[in-house]
């Protein structure tokens, strides 16, 4: 790895970490697109500074970008306050207007007799991480340290303000100032990130790490740390991919690093690395990830249906109690809208739990199975009786409702139901469907 690569790597890592941490707050406040606005609105500022200074003046261009970026934010606030335009529309209008103006200005600069090639303004649109020099990394380092220090100092204030700005206001916190500090630091990081990542993709640096981190934790502090780590990781991955790892597949000479036209651009690769982290988080994060939720849903469905199976077998065997006889699976299927395969799966589930034993004629309830099934039947029938007598639901409508609720009724609630319905405590009531002529009178 060359010294140049190391410089770029350090720069993108720090940039990614800082953008990740600050971006988390923007994501939580549903202000994710503000980063997009800031970066697009910065372009005309860069160009204006170039024109005014008569050349590529580093500090001037940073200040110019910051000025027009914040002007864009201010304009949105004004448009929303004074007209009936909604915030998303205002954002779209202001963003594209500023970006359009930036493109026009940069064309004017390109067409100047001496300005064109020197300006290199087009690199700001898509970014050119490989162009980073030591001075840029120093600046990024200083901004990163300042931003992280700010978040550390104002962690409590940012947390409160992001969660409940109204309450923060009542407690006397200057919410407008907090908002300005948050947006302002986002703007500063945007502007120093532009040369590396570019106007178009800068917003992703803010949004993706925070959105990914949210999948892994329910704690704000941990989310900020994870988001910073993810941001740094995207910077590292994107830069390495750009600097050489891809040359084996693409045949580009890694020693040509710095001659950027021969390298793959780092900005887009950083963003794509972020996407990879986001996808992994989305699918595989515990409890909030898609896979974990699918497994949870499936477990719940299986347990619910399995318990319904126990109850069905119990009712088929009810007249023979306390003897427990095997029940034909066909008889079960007559009472349940289940496929044979699903029913077999449920039998296997219940057998593994020790509730059923498999006999040649079909499944038979074990001792434990009878106990569990009796609890379920009691809950089911009490709930049915409550629906019929308590809230006057038609008897032929209650079965399905009870089916889904019986698995969640707590012991206290069941006792409460028994008392309400003057049903003997702990006993299993008759089924309201059993003999129509003995249906309980309302």
């Amino acid at each position, binding site marked *: 790895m060359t010294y140049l690569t190391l410089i770029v790597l350090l720069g993108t890592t720090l940039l990614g970490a800082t953008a990740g941490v600050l971006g988390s707050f923007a994501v*939580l406040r*549903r202000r994710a697109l503000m980063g997009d606005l800031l970066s697009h609105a910065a372009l005309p500022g860069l160009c204006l500074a170039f024109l005014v200074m008569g050349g590529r003046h580093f500090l001037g261009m940073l200040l110019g970008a910051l000025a027009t970026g914040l002007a864009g934010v201010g304009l949105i606030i004004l448009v929303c306050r004074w007209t009936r335009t909604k915030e998303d529309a205002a954002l779209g209008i202001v963003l594209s207007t500023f970006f359009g103006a930036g493109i026009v200005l940069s064309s004017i600069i390109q067409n100047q007799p001496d300005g064109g090639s020197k300006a290199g303004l087009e690199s700001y649109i898509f970014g050119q991480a490989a162009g980073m020099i030591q001075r840029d990394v120093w600046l990024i380092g200083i901004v990163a340290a300042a931003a992280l220090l700010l978040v550390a*100092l*104002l*962690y*409590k*204030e940012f*947390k*409160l303000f*992001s*969660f*409940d700005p*109204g*309450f923060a*206001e*009542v*407690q*006397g*916190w200057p919410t407008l100032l907090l908002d300005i500090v948050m947006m302002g630091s986002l703007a500063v990081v945007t502007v120093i990130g532009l040369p590396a990542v570019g106007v178009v993709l800068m917003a992703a640096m803010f949004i993706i790490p925070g959105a990914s981190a*949210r999948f892994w*934790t*329910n*704690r*704000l502090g941990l*989310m900020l740390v994870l988001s910073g780590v993810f941001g740094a990781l995207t910077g590292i991955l994107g830069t390495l991919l750009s600097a050489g790892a891809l040359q084996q597949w693409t045949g580009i000479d890694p020693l040509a690093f710095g001659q950027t036209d021969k390298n793959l651009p780092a900005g887009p690769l950083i963003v794509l690395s972020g996407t990879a982290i986001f996808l992994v988080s989305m699918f595989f994060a515990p409890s909030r990830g898609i896979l974990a939720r699918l497994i949870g849903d499936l477990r719940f469905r299986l347990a619910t249906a399995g318990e319904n199976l126990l109850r069905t077998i119990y009712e088929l065997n009810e007249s023979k109690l306390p003897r427990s006889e095997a029940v034909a699976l066909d008889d079960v299927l007559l009472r349940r809208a289940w496929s044979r395969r699903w029913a077999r799966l449920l039998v296997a589930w219940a057998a593994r739990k020790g509730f059923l034993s498999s006999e040649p004629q079909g499944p038979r309830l074990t001792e434990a199975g009878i106990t569990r099934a009796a609890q379920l039947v009691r809950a089911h029938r009490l709930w049915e009786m409550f629906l019929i007598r308590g809230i006057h639901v038609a008897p032929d409508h209650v079965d399905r409702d009870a089916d889904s609720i019986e698995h969640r009724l707590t012991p206290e609630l069941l006792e409460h139901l028994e008392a309400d319905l003057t049903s003997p405590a702990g006993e299993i009531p008759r089924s309201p469907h059993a003999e129509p002529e003995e249906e309980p009178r309302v």
Partner: protein
Amino acid sequence: MSTTTAAVPVEVHDVTVAYHRKPVLWDVDLTVPEGKLVGIVGPNGAGKSTLIKAMLGLVPLASGKVEFYGKPYAQQRHLVGYVPQRESVDWDFPVTALDVVMMGTYGRLGWFRRPGAAERLVAEQCLEKVGMSEFATRQIRQLSGGQQQRVFLARALAQDAKIYFMDEPFAGVDATTEKAIVELLQALREDGKTVLVVHHDLQTVSNYFDHVILLNMRLVAAGPTETTFTPENLNKTFGGRLTILDEAAEAVRLGDRR
């Protein structure tokens, strides 16, 4: 009515509030007595929430002023506890119930200082008072609506205030929570606190509150519940939705629309 004494928790002088120049509250004059449970009652859109937001400086006053024990709110924030409407925040926010309750202590902490063991203890005690101790470490999304409401109440308790403002705390809560809120209100009264509650269930007004403020874009009546919560006053508050004020406000809004 110019009895600006130090013993009056909240005094509202001739307050008018407007949204987008449409007046929603007209010329409200009000004195809230100390140590009472005060219900703010009126139909939808009567400006009940707006009134307490105006008192707390959350919406700008078009005219008038509000005083807390004789001084403007900015000087008396430490005396006030606030329970906003439950829907006003994002419950998916990555914090626990205990985190939220601890936010009640932030006002005393001031800039930069982090909450420590003392604040944690306060928050735990407040959660206990609303019967939520066992849910302290739950992320707030994993709580039922009533439990979320109790977390908000605990946060207000952690503010350790003299005057409490509660915006619809009874809205959409379960029986357990309703009972917990009622017990809490009574405990606060026993401690000599003043509590203002935006309330919409007319059935329970007489049971819960000593004092009522009847509101419908203007102050209809305010006073002790026995003498003020009368059929006649209720009729004035709820009867005839489209009052002259309504029409006047609409005229102002239309005149403003270009």
